[in-house]
């Protein structure tokens, strides 16, 4: 399957292991990724907060670039925040042809037009795995079931709310996909209070206490529920849950020390890729215990 691929900013910035692991996992799943190297940041809600039309125009440009990729089935992203911010812009662009024409007018001198179409889609890797590849087909590709691993899903707000904007009418189980993926890859999905809550990242520079109390509390809940690690489809969540984890521990006044995987890393492990090539040594919280468990399964 050929896809227009939007990796986002953070996967090429502070979480290079996400971008790298996606590149390795794609061919194993039969995905041909055409990277949108001219596309700009989705705005993460911050540009829309400053000027909605600016965010809508920048994302319309990204959509137009994606629609220009010959033979692509659709567009794929690997960031919950990109998904949410882009879905919000797309909702406005699709709702009103006058507004869409106005935005396309700004893009016209670049030779770009965003075409509204019921056929075209922009899906996070998590949605794509379940809806376009299918759990049956994914299960058939597993060469190293993640048996014995207890994984806590962490979805990220932007990919679960608001449901009316995120296609839940057509796909009512989108809030369970991460759980489904964990189980189909052979691991056990851990149920805990924080799975669909906020990691706190959006206010890390404005209210550090609120931000890290959120991250710390969810990590602690996952640990108390018996998780060996967490997994997330959002690199911004990863920044607060992994990179900031030692500081988050101070805000909740307890030890944390629980690794956080990116979704493509978890899939990659089950498809037989090695932890090191998936960038699992590039985490702040060491992933050694997870690696040992995975190796034990492989040896058994």
């Amino acid at each position, binding site marked *: 399957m050929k896809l227009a691929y939007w990796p986002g*900013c*953070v996967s090429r*910035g*502070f979480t*290079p292991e996400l971008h790298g692991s996606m590149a390795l996992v794609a061919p194993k799943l039969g995905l041909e990724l055409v990277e949108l*190297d*001219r596309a*700009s*940041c989705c*705005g*993460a809600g*911050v*540009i*829309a*907060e*400053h*000027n*909605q*039309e*600016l965010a809508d*125009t*920048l994302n319309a*440009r990204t959509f137009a670039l994606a629609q220009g990729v010959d033979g692509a089935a659709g567009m794929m992203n690997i960031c919950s925040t990109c998904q949410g911010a882009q879905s919000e812009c797309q*909702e406005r662009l*699709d*709702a*009103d042809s*006058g*507004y869409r024409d*106005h935005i396309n007018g*700004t893009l016209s*001198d*670049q030779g770009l037009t965003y075409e509204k179409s019921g056929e075209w889609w922009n899906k996070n890797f998590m949605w794509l795995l379940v809806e376009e590849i299918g*759990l049956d087909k994914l*299960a058939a590709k597993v060469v190293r079931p993640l048996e014995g691993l207890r994984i806590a899903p962490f979805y990220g*707000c*932007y990919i679960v*709310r*608001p449901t009316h904007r995120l296609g839940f009418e057509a796909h009512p189980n989108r809030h369970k996909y991460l759980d*489904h993926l964990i*189980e*189909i890859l052979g691991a056990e999905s851990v149920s805990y209070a924080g799975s669909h*809550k*906020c990691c706190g*990242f*959006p*206010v890390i*520079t*404005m*209210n*550090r*206490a*609120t931000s890290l*109390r*959120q991250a710390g509390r969810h990590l602690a809940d996952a640990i108390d529920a018996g998780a060996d690690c967490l997994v997330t489809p959002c690199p911004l969540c990863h920044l607060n849950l992994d*990179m900031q984890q*030692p500081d988050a521990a101070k805000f909740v006044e307890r030890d944390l020390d629980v690794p956080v995987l990116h979704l493509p890393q978890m899939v990659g492990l089950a498809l037989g890729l090695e932890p090191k090539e998936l960038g699992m040594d*590039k*985490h*702040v919280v060491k992933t050694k215990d997870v690696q040992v468990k995975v190796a034990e399964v492989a040896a058994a």
Partner: protein
Amino acid sequence: MSILDKILGRDEEPADGDGPKNEAAGYTLKIRRYDPESGETAFWHEYDVDIAPERSVLDGILYAKDHEDASIGIRCSCRAAICGSCGVRINGKSALACNTRISDAQAKAGRGKPIVVEPMGNMPVLKDLIVDMDAVHWKKIQRVVPWLLPDGEPPEREYIVPAESMIDVTQSMACIQCGVCVSACLSLEVDPEFVGPAALAKAYRFVGDPRDGQTEERLRDLAEDPHGMYDCTHCFACIEVCPKDVAPMDQIMRLRRRATGDYEIKDKNNGYGHGKAFVDMIENWGTLHEAQMLPRSFGDGSMIKGQTEPGAVKQLVEALPTAIRGLKSGKVTPKAVLFHPKLPDQDNVRKIYKAIESQGERLELNLYIVADNSADEEGAMAEGTKEGLA
């Protein structure tokens, strides 16, 4: 049964048809009970209720009250999502009990499982499903001065404003003060002092009102408050649960847009600086240069000024261990801190910035106001969606 069958629900009967339509059906409500006067801790109790599938969860609670235990505490009045009294949590999700169909709640709970009903979150429980709205919700509403503060002498008769100048605040005016968003708020969960979604939506109702004379003061107050407009984590929980489509988080974003765009309020919480640094970075490079995000936030977009202010120094020092961790783990390289590549055709991104900023007005398409007209494809882009710049 395989894991796949379990995940795909192949072991279950179809999810629809939770009881015959228009006929009484059996549901079980699992209600969290608490009576402070009893001296006992809270406990769960299950009630079987025989009501038709199209009836509400509130009807179910009242059925249990009528048929089994008259002491169940619930606040309610209109039963039509107007009075805003019966906010509860149903299967963990904040909602009005009268506005939630019992068969829908059953579908969410899962076949054969009880429908879980709890009091709202983020507020102390007075009894059973009744929470102390005064202690949290109403106190926060009072905090934002929820009345008009016009300038000068009042007119002899009523204030007269053009109807279109009020369109922008109709969404925040739709609030019925039910507190469901307060219950769901994920910032309040960790910071009880957060002004919160309902009160901030109420604040926008006056900030956006052309008759109010304290617009800048209101914005400055809520921008400078460490628990004000910049304490919202953008989690969409309030948007998801609001029974009247007020979208409180969108109103908070409008407050920020006004505070930064119209009044350039450079708050000590760094809300202005964060937004400015972010928006400028995308204009410069097209993608985010994360390593410079924090220092540029303190410099209101610049790398070389503002960082020596006491608050900035403290936060930059606090962030140092994170930066060191990033370098040590190999996520971040010194080169990446200093250099960030531009998009190959960054000029095209800049052109978009220039075109939009030269318009002299901000265009906002509020779908609550114009509605989705994708079906008729007329393209209304109704009047009243253009915010004039102050």
